[in-house]
């Protein structure tokens, strides 16, 4: 007889939920989530390696956040030009100043 189990933890939440109020996520918040997906460090790892891995994670977080901010600025440039070309210079200026 073979038995395979497809079950979930009934009691503890399985998925995480993150929400914001009157804003979107910041690059820093998203960078933290991004790095958590890419790098995981077990608590039982050798302390020397664990500390090094966590320091590396923090560094990567900063790099990711930096490029996210760059991506936002770059996209705003694109949006600015699209609105300006469509005859909405005031709206375009509003976007540029964000």
């Amino acid at each position, binding site marked *: 007889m073979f038995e*395979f189990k*497809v079950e979930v933890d009934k*009691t*503890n939440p399985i*998925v995480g*939920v*993150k929400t*914001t109020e*009157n804003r979107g996520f910041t690059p820093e918040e998203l960078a933290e989530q991004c790095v958590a997906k890419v790098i995981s460090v077990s608590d039982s790892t050798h302390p020397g390696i664990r500390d090094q891995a966590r320091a590396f994670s923090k560094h990567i977080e900063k790099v990711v956040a930096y490029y996210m901010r760059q991506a936002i600025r770059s996209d705003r440039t694109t949006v600015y030009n699209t609105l300006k070309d469509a005859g909405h210079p005031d709206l375009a200026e509003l976007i540029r100043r964000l």
Partner: protein
Amino acid sequence: MAFTGNFMCTSFKVELLKGQHDFTNGQDAFKIALYDNNASFTAATTDYTATDEVAASGSYSAGGGTLTNVTPTSSSTTAFTDFDDITFTSATITARGALIYNTQTGGGSGTTDTVVVLDFGSDKSSTSGDFQIVFPTADASNAIIRIA
């Protein structure tokens, strides 16, 4: 009525043995619908329902959002699959839980067969902001759907 925990739907297990769910990326389309705490789902839940679903807001519309499947894989003797995190933007939502369901069960279309009931543990709210669902790490110990 209220959410009473997480459940892997029994009908899903049966359909799994019938080979009716394909989690391969690009195959069956799975959706996640959000509900308030008036909803009452258990392992006996078989289909998506609009009753007690949160109202459409921002990028959230009736029926919920389409998930991106991560093709199943394995580690040691455990097989598992995952979904990409999903974010509903510019949304005002208060939800206590969710249903994941397959809209293409058995290669069909427009199906509503439930996979899993998710209890968030408490009401989660966004106000004119982002409402993001973060799936657990895709590994043999944590992935949302695992066969051990």
